């Protein structure tokens, strides 16, 4: 008998089976089935598969232009994000300075903000709708991906190799190029692929900031579905996008696996104060970049929310509860905050349970296909999923159309990949010797799980829950397609206010944005405190 892996009891195998079944059934029911239904309606309208629309995507010059633009804007956005984010990753990983953990948390906030809010911030700053605005917004959103994914690796990189190279007379540049960069490469590739994935499927940014001549696969799916009702073409575009995303996810998984440093140094030994001139320049330069890129747009929102036409003050916040009162669709802002919190709590619970089980089952079975499965919703356009819900979940016992449950379900689909990303590496990193010791001392597998795995996982789950909560609060795309108009979330209220006439409505939109920002920031900060500098790939 293999000592290290005691034979699984029947109960144990049942447990693993359930851990695999829950996420699989969840994704099949609330993702694969609705998406397949709408794609089926498009690709096989008469019950027979018609590949003509798929051919059109690659032969029609306009559509080919859309595909090409999608690819190169994502590539350019990724390169820019890396160029701006890598120095930031170094500063936050290696330099010790007062307020660092706060800065690190603040940098993450843009990632979970709704696109509609960010777009209005950029427009309020006077950035014209253009390619530049798209790129800028993509850097804004994904800066955190680079800083956190690469930074996490950088923080734990063994510094002795660098020191040795330096001692042997290598120049700083050569140390970077031959020692540090190769060690960081898997992390950089993982961050680049994730960034590319988000920019590739970008929707709100393109729609709100791109102007009418710029269209990506995602916005084209939206246009073809909601405008022309050309379901065959929309389905063909979805298939193209989904195929690309599957390849990208596979790459992410590969790079991530390689991104686990072989010899981890303790973060405390490696980081140092910014003493040298170079380090100081880097520190202040990067803080300036973060201030200009991340803090300025959000600062403008705060300023605009406090300066309505009637003069400096809280009038916009009061207007939130007064505008269009008495009209049929009036929703009090406090209710919207309540809706947002309620939906986010439900979505977080779903995402943590389903994502946590998937992470656990994946780590136990040493396979990550479950991670990939849960990440797939990132690659499907919100309109496809929303319309899929409409036509697929319309019969009892699963008649969810118009049900409030669709909102947390959709938000959970978006948040789940991040739960896996945060929990799986922690579970994987549990020192097997601790488990072995426990087993040797006579603990049953169930007891090992309870006394070893669970306490370690609990903290990771807490971090994941905070992050999932923040994502759910800020989610706009999928929510906008399934939300009930009488129970809007804050991002939906912001979107509606931006579409109403008058300066008062604009000010109220800014005020709602600020409230949302505070809620999201609180969730992110709470998560970072729970993390306390350990583990996780994001």
């Amino acid at each position, binding site marked *: 008998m293999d000592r290290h892996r005691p034979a699984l009891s029947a109960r144990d195998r049942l447990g693993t089976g359930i851990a695999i079944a829950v996420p699989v059934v969840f994704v099949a029911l609330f993702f694969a*089935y609705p998406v397949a239904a709408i794609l089926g309606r498009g690709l096989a309208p008469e019950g027979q598969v018609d590949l003509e629309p798929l051919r059109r995507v690659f032969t029609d010059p306009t559509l080919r232009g859309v595909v090409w633009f999608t690819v190169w804007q994502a590539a350019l956005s990724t390169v820019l994000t890396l160029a701006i984010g890598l120095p930031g990753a170094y500063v936050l990983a290696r330099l010790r300075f007062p307020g660092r953990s706060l800065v690190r948390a603040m940098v993450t906030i843009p990632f979970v903000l709704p696109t509609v809010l960010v777009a209005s911030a950029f427009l309020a700053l006077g950035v014209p709708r253009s390619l530049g605005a798209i790129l800028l917004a993509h850097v804004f959103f994904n800066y955190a991906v680079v800083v956190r994914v690469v930074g996490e690796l950088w923080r734990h990189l063994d510094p002795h190799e660098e020191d040795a190279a330096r001692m042997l007379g290598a120049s700083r540049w050569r140390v970077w190029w031959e020692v540090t960069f190769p060690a960081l490469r898997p992390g950089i590739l993982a961050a680049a692929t994730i960034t590319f994935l988000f920019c590739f499927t970008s929707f709100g940014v393109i729609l709100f900031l791109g102007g009418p001549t710029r269209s990506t696969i995602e916005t084209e799916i939206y246009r073809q579905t909601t405008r022309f009702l050309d379901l065959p073409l929309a389905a063909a575009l979805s298939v193209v996008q989904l195929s690309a995303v599957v390849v990208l996810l596979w790459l992410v*998984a590969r790079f991530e696996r390689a991104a686990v440093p072989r010899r981890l140094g303790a973060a405390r030994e490696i980081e140092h104060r910014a003493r040298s001139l170079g380090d100081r320049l880097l520190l202040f330069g990067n803080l300036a970049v973060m201030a200009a890129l991340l803090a300025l747009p959000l600062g403008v929102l705060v300023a605009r929310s406090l300066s309505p036409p009637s003069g400096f003050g809280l009038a916009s916040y009061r207007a939130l509860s007064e505008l269009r009162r*008495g009209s*049929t669709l009036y929703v009090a802002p406090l209710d919207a905050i309540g809706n947002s919190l309620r939906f986010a709590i439900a979505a977080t619970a779903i995402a943590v349970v389903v994502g946590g089980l998937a992470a656990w089952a994946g780590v136990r079975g040493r396979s990550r*296909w479950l991670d990939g499965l849960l990440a797939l919703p990132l690659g499907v356009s919100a309109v496809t999923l929303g319309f899929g819900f409409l036509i*697929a979940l319309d019969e009892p016992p699963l008649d969810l159309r118009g049900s409030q449950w669709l909102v947390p379900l959709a938000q959970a689909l978006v948040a789940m990949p991040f739960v896996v990303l945060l929990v799986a590496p922690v579970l994987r990193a549990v020192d097997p010797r601790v488990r072995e010791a426990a087993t040797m001392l006579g603990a049953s597998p169930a007891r090992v799980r309870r006394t070893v795995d669970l306490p370690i996982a609990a903290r990771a789950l807490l971090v994941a829950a905070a992050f999932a909560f923040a994502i759910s609060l800020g989610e706009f795309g999928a929510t906008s397609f399934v939300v009930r108009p009488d129970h809007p979330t804050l991002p939906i209220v912001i979107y*509606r206010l931006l579409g109403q006439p008058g300066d008062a409505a604009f000010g109220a939109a800014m005020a709602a944005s600020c409230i949302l920002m505070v809620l999201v920031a609180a969730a992110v900060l709470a998560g970072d405190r729970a993390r306390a500098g350990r583990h996780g790939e994001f």
Partner: protein
Amino acid sequence: MRRIPALAASLVASMVVAAASTVVVAPARAGVQVGKDGKGETVTLVTHDSFALSEDVVAAFTKRTGIEVEILPLGDAGQIVNQAILTKDNPLGDVLFGVDNTFLTRALEAGIFERYRSPALADVPAALRLDRRGRVTPIDYGDVCINYDEEWFADEGLTVPETLRDLTKPKYRDLLVVEDPSTSSPGLAFLLATVAEFGERGWTDYWAKLRDNGVTVVDGWEQAYYDEFTGGGAGGDKPLVVSYASSPAAAVVFADPPIDESPIGTMTGSCFRQVEFAGILAGTEHRAAARRLVDFLLSPEVQADVPLQMFVYPAVAGTPLPDEFTDNVGTVDDPYTMAPGRIGAQRDEWIREWTGTVLR
């Protein structure tokens, strides 16, 4: 490497299962129950995001009839029609309000409505009753027109353009912002106005001239009006915008601090008439209540409420209009119009041609 086959297999498997289950024909619906008066029922009104009525008006209807009204906005006019078509076998609601003459044919051809002629229809002018078979009921109408910023033109000492052709003159260079007809309802209406004026052969030339004269295209009305228009309040620099004949009235109603006279004018020679309809969705289980809801939309209370709630004209002739509305909405005597059938047959093709002419 082993992961991919597993991932692909599970994906394919779930898609196969899903595809198989969609092929199964939906069971026939249970018999439609036709109550006498719909009392105690809840009737769902599918509509667009710009829908608005005073709360007390709706409450009075519920009090009088015992019918609860659930309002379900599902996007803009084009989107609600498309969603209604997609969910035809199992409709999302009982009544749809907000399909206009630019999307009417698509809705009628898909057969999403059942016939109903409201008694109140007698007071609606014939020009608005665009479906002879009575599947949809006109509720309101409005005009999509070019608005101008009066102060800007006064300051520049420039005369305001009067006709569509004027807009191609060099003195109006870089002054106009329009919406993309593929993403915006007023944008589409303005495109139809130019087709009505210049004909099948001439309209693309006209747009080529507009393009060369520096027309700005944006995605939606909000963007055009609030961000680009000088009168929109956010520092735009275009004094001409495709908007509505009622925008000057809205500018007065929503002014903060209050103003008496609108700073915005309407180019009455540029207008296209939009008529909004309501229809009962085929397959409703609340037919009686749905009919009473359609009657209600034509009732004096609702008709008097729509001008200041949605900034449109009531369809019922002789409905009294509020002063803020009549004082500031220029009378459009002879707007451009087009038969819904012609729009339906060529809309998508025109949009494609427009895109090719103006954007690429």
